């Protein structure tokens, strides 16, 4: 049996179903050939946004070159073509998440808009004064602020599942927070600041015992792990296209049809209506009820292309490869004196947050940048996580399947340089 560890360096196992030929996939991403500050680009900021394969770039270009038209209205050829491409992408998302119907797939601008949609629409319909909403201590601001806004609007209360020093949710505490007043639970599948993979199946199952729906923020998970919303039985799942090797400005909200049916529209406008008079407007059916206005058609089609690309490689293979790369990076970084890894959960995706004694993460970021290495330095839009770990910011390297062991070595060399310069 071929191990994934060999897959990173060995060229001898092309036929293995577990082998990811990283040299080959790198050829698919033109930007990876770029030089930055005279050095080969080492792109380790994939949790912020991912690079785009040529096929996605070509799909978007082709749309604008020869298919551009508005959808769901024209009777002309191009409009039919664009509508078909748009709805075909919805079908691809349905397959990608294993949703039971295309009407459960709603296109939004990104994860942030998806969460805001649920907070405002579900919130308006189902959350009242005195009700409770549960999130976790490791959420991105986009899974905190929309719920705080809702709580302020209706007089509900935000409850927060605490985490331990490894960055893992305290499930016992979560159990204690759940009660008859809990109206929704909203947690990250994978933490953007810590890399923790949360036990979402268990989280969902526990909430359902209280008949409480669960929203999963999949921004950091969908590009790296296989997701099956029916198997998970989650009520809402959101992710962004640009982190999934697709374009910016497009994302997906999956919702169970029966819940979406009961929710009021989020925005009013064209496309989301069946008929309009000044006396009464009838809303369109799902998913159009939630897609007011001309959508980001090129983005949707580009996202469909990115999903095809990912599925051709296979998410199981991607997850295994990235796990191997993360383990390698973690092992090496752990041996560097003065480095502290923030986020040491047992179950992690390819995110490595760290601090170096006496060196601010911004200085780390600048020194790495001079070697062509792109990482993120800052609070990662997760200020409560920084407070929990008593640091103002961290440096964060985040991996994709096109990253290599050699790039991890370059990162480690540059970290040694940081320590030497600041020593």
């Amino acid at each position: 049996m071929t191990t994934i560890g060999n897959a990173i360096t060995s060229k001898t196992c092309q036929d293995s179903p577990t082998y990811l030929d990283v040299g080959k996939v790198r050829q698919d991403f033109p930007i990876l050939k770029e030089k930055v500050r005279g050095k080969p680009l080492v792109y380790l900021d994939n949790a912020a946004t991912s690079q785009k394969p040529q096929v996605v770039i070509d799909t978007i270009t082709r749309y604008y070159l020869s298919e551009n038209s508005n959808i769901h209205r024209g009777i002309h050829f191009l409009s039919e073509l664009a509508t078909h491409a748009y709805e075909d992408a919805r079908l691809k998302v349905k397959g990608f998440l294993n949703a039971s119907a295309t009407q459960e797939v709603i296109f939004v601008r990104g994860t942030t808009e998806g969460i805001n949609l649920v907070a405002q629409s579900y919130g308006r319909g189902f959350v009242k004064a005195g009700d409770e909403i549960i999130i976790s201590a490791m959420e991105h601001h986009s899974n905190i602020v929309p719920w705080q806004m809702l709580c302020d609007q209706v007089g509900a209360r935000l409850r927060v599942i605490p985490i331990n020093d490894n960055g893992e949710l305290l499930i016992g505490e979560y159990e204690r927070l759940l009660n008859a007043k809990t109206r929704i639970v909203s947690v990250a599948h994978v933490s953007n600041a810590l890399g923790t993979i949360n036990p979402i199946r268990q989280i969902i199952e526990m909430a359902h015992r209280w008949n409480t729906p669960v929203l999963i923020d999949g921004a950091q998970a969908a590009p790296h792990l296989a997701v099956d919303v029916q198997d998970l039985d989650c009520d809402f799942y959101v992710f962004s296209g640009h982190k999934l090797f697709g374009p910016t400005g497009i994302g997906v909200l999956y919702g169970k049809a029966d819940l979406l049916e009961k929710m009021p529209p989020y925005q009013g406008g064209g496309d989301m209506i069946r008929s309009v008079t000044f006396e009464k407007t009838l809303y369109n059916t799902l998913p159009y009820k939630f897609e007011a206005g001309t959508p980001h058609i090129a983005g949707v089609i580009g996202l469909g292309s990115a999903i095809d690309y990912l599925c051709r490689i296979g998410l199981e293979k991607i997850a295994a490869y990235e796990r191997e790369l993360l383990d390698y990076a973690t092992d090496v970084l752990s041996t560097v004196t003065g480095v502290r890894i923030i986020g040491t959960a047992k179950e992690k995706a390819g995110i490595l947050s760290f601090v170096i004694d006496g060196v601010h993460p911004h200085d780390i970021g600048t020194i790495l940048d001079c070697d062509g290495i792109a990482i993120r330095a800052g609070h990662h839009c997760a200020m409560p996580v920084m407070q929990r770990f008593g640091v103002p910011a961290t440096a964060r390297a985040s991996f994709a399947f096109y990253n290599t062991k050699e790039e991890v070595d370059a990162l480690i060399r540059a970290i040694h340089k940081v320590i030497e310069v600041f020593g």
Partner: protein
Amino acid sequence: MFDLSELYHDIIFDHNRKPRNFRKIQGANRMAEGYNPLCGDQITIYLNLDGEVIRDISFQGLGCAISKASASMMTDSVKGKTMAEAKVLFDKVHKMLIGETGTRSDLNEIGELAALSGVCNFPNRVKCASLAWHTLRAALKGDETVVSTE
């Protein structure tokens, strides 16, 4: 090509390791806070003004080497100066940070602070170096709103 030593001059490291006037002035008659939320740089500046003269100045806070060194050098360079002189220095440093300093003699005038002259080649670090200075300006004005340079 980017040269790291352009940004991280030895003087910067020295002030980062041993920041000068890094303390709280008890009974300070002016105080201002600066905060860059995106990077988490946070600074509090304490002043003791004697009429127009800055008798004492100190700072506390968290930040990167550039922001800490800039604050440290600033406290050294404005201590004993009048408010008007400090404002002139602010303008000179500001020009240097945004890359508008003309001649070498302009740099010579500001002494040790010239160590920050490389910052203008790193646009995303200008906000780090300028935070302390904008906070000083707020303190001199008696402005109590939190300053940001992001």
